[in-house]
């Protein structure tokens, strides 16, 4: 919902207020010296350095600090967290704000790498992020690996479309299937006769447990 709203507002803003004359399509002026530097003459090295640093920070935050412990407890069992004196409501607001921090940074990196803001800036990076988070099992280290997998597919897709005539949308298809198989983990294990881990996937279950149950007051 907010996706469409943001897109509509931004298209309007770029077209009416921030548009520069010259290019054939609507875009803003260049960001100038705010453009991200090219390390080792390679696009993406600097951006990856930022991402890796933040992943390390997130790991420390979640697994090595009191706040991280409180966040994990709230996610696993809000009632127990409240009983132990934590405030699930405050933690939810806090984690969502931090989530906004990371998402905002992702957008900023995209635009500062490009150097300007095009009026129609459609990306499916956000949806891919959901797959990455689940594939990485909500763990910063796993997320780095999952992001490399999906990022690699995304980087290779245009070349595949040009040389082999395979539509780029197949990336979304594969992503969705990955997500589906992740959700169906139990069945896959049974089919492939892999012995189930002792721990059932608790992290996956929490998502819908919170659905519609209101915030723990």
């Amino acid at each position, binding site marked *: 919902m907010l996706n*469409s709203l943001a897109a509509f507002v931004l298209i309007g803003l770029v077209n009416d207020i921030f548009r520069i004359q010259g290019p054939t399509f609507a875009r803003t002026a260049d960001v100038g010296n705010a453009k991200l530097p090219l390390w080792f003459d390679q696009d993406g090295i600097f951006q990856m350095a930022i991402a890796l640093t933040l992943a390390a920070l997130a790991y420390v935050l979640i697994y090595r600090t009191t706040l991280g412990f409180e966040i994990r407890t709230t996610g696993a069992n809000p009632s127990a967290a409240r009983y132990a004196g934590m405030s699930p409501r405050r933690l939810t607001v806090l984690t969502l704000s931090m989530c906004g921090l990371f998402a905002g940074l992702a957008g900023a990196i995209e635009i500062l790498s490009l150097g300007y803001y095009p009026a129609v800036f459609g990306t499916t990076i956000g949806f891919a992020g959901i797959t990455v988070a*689940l594939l990485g099992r909500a763990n910063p280290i796993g997320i780095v690996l999952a992001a490399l997998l999906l990022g690699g597919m995304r980087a290779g897709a245009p070349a595949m479309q040009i040389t082999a005539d395979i539509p780029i949308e197949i990336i*979304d298809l594969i992503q969705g*299937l990955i997500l*589906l198989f992740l959700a169906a983990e139990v069945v896959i294990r049974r089919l492939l006769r892999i012995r189930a881990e002792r721990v059932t996937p608790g992290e996956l279950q929490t998502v*819908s447990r919170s659905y519609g149950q209101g915030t723990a007051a």
Partner: protein
Amino acid sequence: MEFLYDIPGLGYVFQLLGYLVDQLLTTNLPARTLFFSTPLALGALCGVMCERSGIVNIGIEGLMLTAAFVGFMAAMLVSEAMPDAEPSGVFGATPALLVGVLAAILAGMAVSALHAWMSISVRADQIITGTAIIIIAFGLTGYLNRLISPSGSAGAFKTFVPPEWMAGIPIIGWIAENVLSVGPISLSVLIFVPILQILLFRSRWGLRTRAVGEHPRAADTVGVDVIRLRYRNVILGGIFAGLAGGWLTLEANASFQNGMTANRGFIALAAVIFGRWTPLGSFGGALLFGFSEAIGIAIRSDPPPGDLGTWLSGIQASYPSLYNNAFSALPYILTIIVLAGVVGRSIPPAAVGRPYVKEGAN
């Protein structure tokens, strides 16, 4: 009444109200409202069917998109096979369009069956499954659409044109001309909503559905087959999502574009919450969103007269793109406002989102 228009500031509000009443009574704004709320209402009916029996179906968007694509392709293939088929007098229906609607419904049911299997038998997380279905639907339809790049089209259903004898009757004539002048899928909503409302609250099936959604264990104890009922409801719910998809490619448009559902599946979910999980209430929600879409178009194409119109066209002249996009964003803004505050705390069926495991089974 005219003096109300001249009150400073408040006058704009009265001018807007006067414009709305005028549009509602003299133009086909009611029909366009019904038209735009159709996919939302159908999607909401799918949501009500699923959630009342305890299954979260966040993937309505994916069901709609798949159905839209399959319906369009089926209609196109049939119309190529029999190009001479004469459109019938009612709704301009051709065999191709009818096959398309049928295919859309079947596609909706098929994807819904996948969701049912994942959530009921596999006991996977229903939100993740729903999200996966959306992503797969976007990917698969986009992939096939680009691969096949369909060039033809089977056309679209025509709107209902009331016969002359009907248009002459005072009130019925107005209703026929200004409310019912829509295509067959839009009209079907007016039939489905009351039927489902009555079935859900006045029939044995409805009682059982609600029981399974609130307390599956209790329902199981008195002999209701929870698993079977959930399967049946989710798959039957796919019919409505399939029809909504058919509306996109066989009634509203005569072509398929990638991602053409444009979040309608999510607005439908908002309508379900708005209507507190009742068919009639969520139809009301859908009408509200449909109305905001229709009025946005009406204001742009036929701007209100007087001060208000001058003020609006002033904005339009200086910020044309912002002006247009603000109206496109209207339904979404409304959805967020409605979800955030107006509805207040709404309580979903108690067992929604939780897979049912029979006692004693693994």
